[in-house]
């Protein structure tokens, strides 16, 4: 039997979490343990990427063990080209989040134990091929996230944490109904996601199932108008948690749309695709408009996520090879870019003790490296060609133009790139350019530890931006076969 890499990727962080929680809290021990375990997990995900068979479209590294045969439950893990980028992203961002949290001094033991538990849930969601596992991991994410925001968050942390928890819980409970509807549908009686996908359901049932899953996924993405938990959660969350939240957590929703609804309820998906596209396009424009006038840098980046995830939903809804490839790679790219932006906001906050755009200015004069990297991340986010942000958006727009959706979707979302450039450059100008306020004279530029959280992301953003085949050779075969199953292509 081959070494169960996926089980290791999912449960290594759990082992780390338990170990950190069990061992007495000595100075620096939790963070070192956390770095060790997330680092090892990242290496495993890198091995998965390197060992992935790029010619194949099906599930790889599959582990399938009967679990509760009488109930149709199996311990079934596996990844294909759609989940691999997200698994890799989870491994990388979790490790970087630990490094970025090095200075946490409020109950570090609990903090790092929870951070690792969070990784278990995210990794599990992207690897699970059984609905029970999928659901359990989905809910596992909520709990540590709730506490991470609720204890280590900003002034309004309780409100934000509860809002996040209840909102997403409400969505996921409805999703559970969807899972049960599938399970109890005639002739199914299995939770295995691949087997369920082989069944064809009548359109009426498909619609109900789709809507149930929609509730869970749309809140997570978040799709307009279910997005208002996001700015609150981000503003209150500590830096590393924001990185994970925007970088990985949101992708659980869009991943769900592609992994679950597209192959299992293809007809309902096709029927509701225009609705998804409309919500996506509204999100793109509305998110950008809201971001434009935010006074808090973190809120601005949060709203920009709403806008960028709108592109993912548009690409998913369009359902062409180019657009879905674009959507999947955009998830990965948005994770890197927005993760980076949140790290940078955190670094600015640590130095200036403010995130208010009007209180900042001229940072590039005093801390040119930090200012330069902030500019880099902003340009990546606004979709400058040569950096990865462009790739996803461009392929999404290209694919949507080729799809059956109305051309106006493409026109509007392409025009929105002006808005994206607008709010990012305006922010950059007010934060990094101009004159330095007097009270910010004593700033120091970024140190080696901080740089080490940013440089890997910069490298990935450049490489994927110039030669996206490094990711798309993994993604394309799976997307092509998925579209064949869903009967779209």
């Amino acid at each position, binding site marked *: 039997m081959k070494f169960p890499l996926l089980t290791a990727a999912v449960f290594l962080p759990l082992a780390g979490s338990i170990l950190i929680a069990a061992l007495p809290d000595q100075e620096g021990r939790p963070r070192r343990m956390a770095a060790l375990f997330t680092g090892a997990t990242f290496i495993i995900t890198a091995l998965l990427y390197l060992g992935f068979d790029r010619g194949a479209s099906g599930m790889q590294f599959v582990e399938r063990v009967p679990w509760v045969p009488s109930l149709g*439950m199996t311990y079934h893990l596996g990844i294909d080209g759609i989940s691999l980028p997200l698994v890799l992203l989870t491994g990388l961002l979790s490790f970087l989040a630990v490094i970025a949290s090095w200075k946490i001094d409020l109950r570090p033991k609990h903090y790092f134990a929870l951070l690792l538990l969070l990784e278990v849930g995210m990794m599990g969601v992207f690897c699970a091929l059984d609905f029970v596992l999928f659901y359990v991991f989905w809910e596992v994410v909520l*709990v540590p996230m709730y506490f991470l925001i609720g204890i280590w968050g900003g002034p309004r942390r309780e409100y934000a944490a509860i809002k996040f928890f209840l909102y997403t819980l409400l969505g996921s409970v409805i999703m559970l109904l969807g899972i049960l509807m599938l399970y109890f549908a005639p002739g199914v009686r299995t939770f295995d996601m691949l087997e369920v996908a082989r069944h064809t359901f009548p359109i009426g049932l498909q619609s109900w199932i789709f809507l149930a899953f929609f509730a869970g996924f749309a809140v997570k993405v978040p799709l307009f108008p279910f997005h208002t938990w996001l700015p609150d959660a981000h503003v209150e969350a500590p830096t590393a948690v924001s990185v994970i939240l925007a970088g990985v957590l949101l992708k659980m929703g869009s991943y769900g749309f592609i992994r679950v609804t597209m192959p299992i309820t293809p007809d309902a998906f096709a029927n509701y695709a225009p609705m998804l596209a409309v919500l996506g396009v509204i999100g793109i424009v*509305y998110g950008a408009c809201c971001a434009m006038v935010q006074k808090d840098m973190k809120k601005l980046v949060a709203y920009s996520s709403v806008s960028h995830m709108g592109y993912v939903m548009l690409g998913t809804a369009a359902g062409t090879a180019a657009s879905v490839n674009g959507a999947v790679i955009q998830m990965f790219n948005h994770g890197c870019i927005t993760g980076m932006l949140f790290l940078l906001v955190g670094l600015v906050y640590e130095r200036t003790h403010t995130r208010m755009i009007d209180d900042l200015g001229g940072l590039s004069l005093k801390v040119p490296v930090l200012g330069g990297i902030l500019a880099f991340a902003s340009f990546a986010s606004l979709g400058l060609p040569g950096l990865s942000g*462009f790739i996803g958006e461009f392929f999404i727009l290209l694919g949507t133009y080729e799809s059956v959706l109305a051309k106006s979707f493409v026109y509007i979302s392409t025009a929105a*790139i002006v808005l994206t450039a607008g709010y990012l450059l305006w922010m950059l100008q007010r934060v990094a*350019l101009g004159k330095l306020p007097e009270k910010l004279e004593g700033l120091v530029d970024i140190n080696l530890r901080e740089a080490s959280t940013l440089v890997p992301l910069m490298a990935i953003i450049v490489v994927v931006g110039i030669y996206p085949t490094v990711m798309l050779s993994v993604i*394309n075969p799976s997307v*092509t076969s998925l579209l064949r199953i869903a009967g779209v292509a």
Partner: protein
Amino acid sequence: MLQLALIPLLCVASFIVLVTAGRRAREWAHYVGIVTVLGSFGLSVATFARVMSGGPFSHTFAWVKLGSKTIQLGLQADPLTAVMLLVISIVSLMVNVYSIGYMHGDERYHWYYAVLSLFTAAMLSLVLANNYLLMYMSWEIMGLCSYLLIGFWFEKEEAYNASKKAFLVTRVGDVGFGLGIIAIFATTGTFVFRDVFHAAEGMAPALITLITLFLFCGAIGKSAQFPLHVWLPDAMAGPTPASALIHAATMVAAGVYLVARSFPLFELSETSLAVVATIGAITALGAALIAVVQLDIKKVLAYSTISQLGYMMMGLGAGSYVAGMWHLTTHAFFKALLFLGSGSVIHAVHSQDIRDMGGLSKKMPITTWTFIIGSLALAGIFPLSGFFSKDEILAALYHKHMWPILGAAILGAFLTAFYMARVCFVVFFGREKGHHAHESPLVMTVPLVILTAITVGLGLDARLGAHFFTEFLGEHPEPINLMIALGSTAVALSGIAVGWLVYHRRAIPLGTVKKQRLVMYATTVLRNKFGLDELYEHYVVGAFIKFCDFCAWFDRTVVDGIVNGAASVTLVAARAAGWFDTHIVDGIVNGLGFVVMGAGKRLRYAQTGRLQSYAQWMYGTLIVIILFILWLTLRGGL
């Protein structure tokens, strides 16, 4: 492939070296910049020779596969590319050398050279691209470099506002460009020029018109054509040598290049050609009018650039690809010359206002005479290069019987001669203004002399040059039309004569003229740049920001209000449901109620703020989940 790829990659290498070295490169940044661009120049010459002797060649590789479609990218060298490569590498080389003097001692000297290198790389790869996608990517990266160089002195409000404005306004045009290439790929399945042009022959005319107009939007933004020209005058906030390279000679000409490169498409649509010519005419005339009243020497040149780009568009719109490209080439050299000359003046008098200048001809002879030759070329005086290329455009308009546009072009030619005469007489002659100006160092004057030589040379050799150039680019040269040649010379000379009368001889008293109501009114309109900036600022940007404020308010109050309202209602209902909980046996409802109750309790705990309770809850929830799984497992096992 390697030979072509190295041309831009050398400059990319320079960028990487300089950015990595950071401040350490302050002493030697210019060596890296100059050596790499010299290498690119050498390779460009080799490429030019190869194209001349062996014809065009190209290399293509598979970039990405989406579904079953493969996106091909690649590089090519054909006559058009070869000419552009020489223009770009020569002007960039001159600017790199000149900047040693101009940027000497600047705090961010290394950064300046880094961005200059990246820009050169992007512009070179733009003209080397054999497909629309790589072209678009280079196009946008040039936009980034333009942003960085305009905002180079980013502590100044004027600079950072101008850089943001430049990026956003050109991006408006880029939306069109982007949609154009998306439409191209969706219809033809490729971005590669040759295949696209081949496929276009069978396309519906309406679709071709749509695609070409989309592409032209990009050109309007980048080449500062009406109504998106407003960013270019502001862009003068950047260092002058950067303006010479980016905002006079090369980047702003990229829009013209885009239309020229897509000429096989544009030729298929009469409508699009007419639009190109009309926009060109409006721009050429409007910008020339504004240039007449500008007091900032760089702004005069900026409006002049806008105006000349309009001429190139007119040439293209008249169906003469050669006229447009020939003027692009000559303009690149003489306008770079004029900008570098103005930089030399600014360097000497520490002001950009022409009222602060005067009588500089004695103190700065090299700058003066090179600038005057450049001005004469711009005015279109025989036998300088500008005369021949402008003539080519006028002839093309004449042959196409585009009378109103020809009229605008001739009027523009008069104004061009007039405003350049104004600058020359005011700055170099007349009374000295008591500053201690002196000639610039050799690193600055040598590039001026070289560019002057090229400007004169391209003209002296014009018959030969034009023939060579036109045949090289694949069209037969138009025979010089004597009537147009004489007519345009007369117009240009009269423009200079009026300038001389007004600004040198003072034969026409300016003070009284300016008090005429009509003149006052006209001056106000022109000083306000026809009110376009104001229109955009208040009625487009201002109104839009108000809309954004509304969105943000709507989001906080309405969307989130509904969420919060629903949450409180649910909480009340859930408590009620929880009370009945024990009476309901159904598992699902039970679970739901349990969870909501749990959340309700947590709410209370959270409000107590006792940290201990959080940890208890965390482990409690974990245990519940584990128990749940165990229970399921056991039940299944039995």
